């Protein structure tokens, strides 16, 4: 009953006119920047930070948090409509979402994404309220050895992302790993593959690669084949998902929510992995895995739920331990300290209205996002009927603005264009960019955690099997690997591939 009282306290704090207004502003702003690729929540939070000095602490935090989860909603919109993922988690949404849009089912994809996100947000918020402090302790037990084993598991998942040849998928992961080497090595401080370019000292930005390989390459492909222009070949049949869509989507949403809530707690990489893992899981449990990559609604529903649940539960380490799990949480930490709040175990005891108010506002914010986003679907889908000759310069412009704004430099824009042409060649060679991006994201995580674990254990590799969580993850990876090798599964994969050729 204590929880019930706390939630009532939270809602009474969050449902004041001021706080509701700032929740709405945050959610709207978040949706907007989520739709624009590249202009991420971190930069927006930084710009708005000085303004929040003059707001009451709770209103400030509610608005900043709203921007963060609002961006998660908005990010999937461009991924589905124009194959333009703005961040790591929406890469997966683009895989099947964009295919659905091409088949005239953009409305269904958007609706399922919004509904799935809302459900996941609700569950994760409740999870945060009930089990936050306990789960946070668990997150701390993830050290370098555990992250290494988790990343191994994630990389194996990456091979499942591809709908075509496994060999090509592995090759693409390899290219992604090499791209992840570029930059200054964290452990030794020496430069790798930078060719002396100061712009490459910190490696390549994710957005640069994603916008190039997905967004720009897509535009080139579309311009090459005149009959495909106008984005959608078929007529838009209906805006709302069918009964069949719902039936397929809801178990996927459930699984995605569970996975996302859990992985989101892990600081560093957890939230990114959640969408990828959810996709892998859906493809594995599906009776028609060959549908994935060709507009399977589960491929949108699962990852979208996982991604939003992960965004919600990444607040847990911040609020309960004072540990920011990503750049956005670091900004929120900054905002809290400016208001004289010390994030950590003491917040819940000393300022319960703030802690529970923020949690309650997240649910209210998610509800607002649903109300904002569902009626907008019609509008978004109409956008697709704009002639492509008018649409593509606009998409290209947003790509450039977004890429430039990541670090404010033109070098990145040129690099993204380069990746655009590379992506075009990949498409011609029937190589899919999804596994490449996962390799790129996970490669550096794998390497730094391996080296860190070995440093701390003073060179003894037994650390990976001595620690129970690490051991469990390695066993799970081995099981997944075997599953990939099982001939029967391989056969279905090849059948799928033959289908595509035919």
């Amino acid at each position, binding site marked *: 009953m204590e929880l019930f009282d706390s939630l009532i306290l939270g809602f009474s704090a969050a449902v004041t006119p001021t706080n509701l207004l700032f929740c709405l502003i945050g959610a709207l702003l978040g949706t907007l920047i989520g739709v624009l690729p590249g202009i991420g929540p*971190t*930069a927006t*939070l*930084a*710009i708005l*930070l*000085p303004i929040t*000095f003059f707001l009451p602490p709770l209103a400030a935090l509610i608005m900043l948090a709203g921007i963060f989860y609002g961006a998660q909603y908005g990010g999937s919109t461009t991924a589905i409509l124009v194959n333009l993922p703005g961040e790591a988690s929406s890469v997966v949404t683009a895989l099947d979402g964009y295919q659905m849009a091409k088949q005239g089912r953009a409305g269904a994809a958007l609706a399922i994404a919004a509904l799935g996100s809302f459900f996941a947000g609700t569950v994760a918020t409740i999870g945060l309220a009930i089990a936050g402090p306990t789960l946070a302790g668990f997150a*701390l*037990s*993830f*050290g*370098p050895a555990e992250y290494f084993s988790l990343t191994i598991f994630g990389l194996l998942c990456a091979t499942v992302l591809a709908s075509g040849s496994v060999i090509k998928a592995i090759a693409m992961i390899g290219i992604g790993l090499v791209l992840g080497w570029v930059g*200054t090595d*964290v*452990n*030794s*401080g*020496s430069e790798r593959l930078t060719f002396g370019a*100061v*712009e490459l*000292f*910190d490696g390549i930005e994710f957005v640069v690669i994603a916008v190039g390989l997905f967004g720009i390459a897509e535009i080139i492909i579309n311009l090459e084949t005149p009959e495909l222009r106008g984005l959608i070949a078929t007529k838009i049949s209906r805006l709302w998902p069918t009964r069949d869509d719902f039936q397929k989507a809801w178990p996927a949403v459930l699984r995605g929510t569970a996975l996302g809530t859990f992985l989101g707690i892990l*600081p*560093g990489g957890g939230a990114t992995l959640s969408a990828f893992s959810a996709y892998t899981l859906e493809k594995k449990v599906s009776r028609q895995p060959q549908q994935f990559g060709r507009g399977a609604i589960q491929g949108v529903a699962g990852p979208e739920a996982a991604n939003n649940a992960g965004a919600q539960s990444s607040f847990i*380490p911040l609020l309960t*331990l*004072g*540990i*920011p799990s990503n*750049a*956005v949480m*670091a*900004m929120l*930490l*900054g905002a809290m*300290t*400016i*208001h*004289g709040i*010390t*994030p*950590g*175990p*003491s917040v819940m005891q000393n300022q319960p209205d703030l802690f529970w108010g923020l949690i309650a506002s997240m649910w209210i914010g998610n509800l607002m996002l649903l109300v904002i986003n569902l009626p907008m679907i019609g509008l978004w889908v109409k956008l697709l009927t704009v002639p492509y000759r008018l649409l593509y310069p606009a998409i290209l412009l947003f790509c450039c603005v977004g890429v430039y704004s990541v*670090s*404010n*430099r033109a070098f990145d824009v040129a690099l993204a264009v380069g990746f655009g042409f590379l992506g075009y060649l990949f498409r011609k060679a029937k190589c899919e960019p999804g596994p490449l991006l996962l390799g790129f994201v996970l490669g550096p995580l794998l390497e730094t955690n391996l080296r*860190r674990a070995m*440093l*701390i254990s*003073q060179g003894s590799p037994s650390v990976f099997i001595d620690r129970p969580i690490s051991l469990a993850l390695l066993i799970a990876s081995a099981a997944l690997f075997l599953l990939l090798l099982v001939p029967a599964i391989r056969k279905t994969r090849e059948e799928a591939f033959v289908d595509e050729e035919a």
Partner: protein
Amino acid sequence: MLKALKTFCIGALAVSATAGVAHAEWPKDRPIEIIVAFAPGGSTDVMARAMQPYLEKELGAKIVIINKPGASGEIAYTQLSQAKPDGYTFSFINTPGYLSMQVQRKLRYDPKSIQAVARIVDDPTAFVVKADSPLKSLKDLVAQAKANPKSVSVGSSGVGTDDHLATILLESAAGVSLTHVPFPGAGETRTALLGGHITVGGLNVSEFASGDTSSVRPLVHFGDKRSPEAPDVPMAQEQGFEVFMSSERGLAARRDVPADIRTKFSDAVKKVVDNPEFKEQAKKLSLPLAYLSGEEWEQQMPKRLQAFQDIWNKTPWVQ
């Protein structure tokens, strides 16, 4: 189309012409750009944004903060060295990175073309352990490292940062061997420390004092006097180790910016640092304010630069 281009060109010319005559009116005619060499959300960025409204009021000018992250600041400093010397571009500089990079690699800009304008913060490097750690003092730490070389792991915010350099200095002063574990930032170091994955976290005084202090315990800091933010934490010197290291933050401009503009700007920064309202903000952020004029700050730099050169010659921290 051609006509539009023409109009645009004329417009651009008109704008640049007005900008050309504006020098006399500094700082009124356009916004002052202040470059932050780190991503939004970092401690330098948060400090810059906390100062922004106060500095705008002091100068009566608009200020725009531009993040130019990358290459531990080299990208930002290169940009500063290429800006027009008209007093409309400043950049934050952070030591020891600003100095140690001059030792460790060939740079894209000439460090002599940049002049410090004002120091704002002097934040001592500290060694922090988990609250339940058996280590009670720096002496305990050294004793354990002596008995069992490499068994003490020290997390830092990266290769060549103040935490890392302090570790190297301590190793040589105490004759011990520590295991240095670099992380991308202080947040990650803190997480690894709380999880018990590393023995010691190299954090700055402001970094642990602004967070939740119930689960961590500072052992020692490497400042040259007791810190007002953490008055109970002893200095390394008091424990018998002559190791000094801190991270300073301040503002710099091109050396050929007119002296009167630099002085006016430096004085405005001093007024902000002395402003009780800003002091209150700084206290919440645990910023150890320590204003120095550009000249005073620059006087200290050659000595520190030499110290880094000496460490580098003995143990280069980048292979």
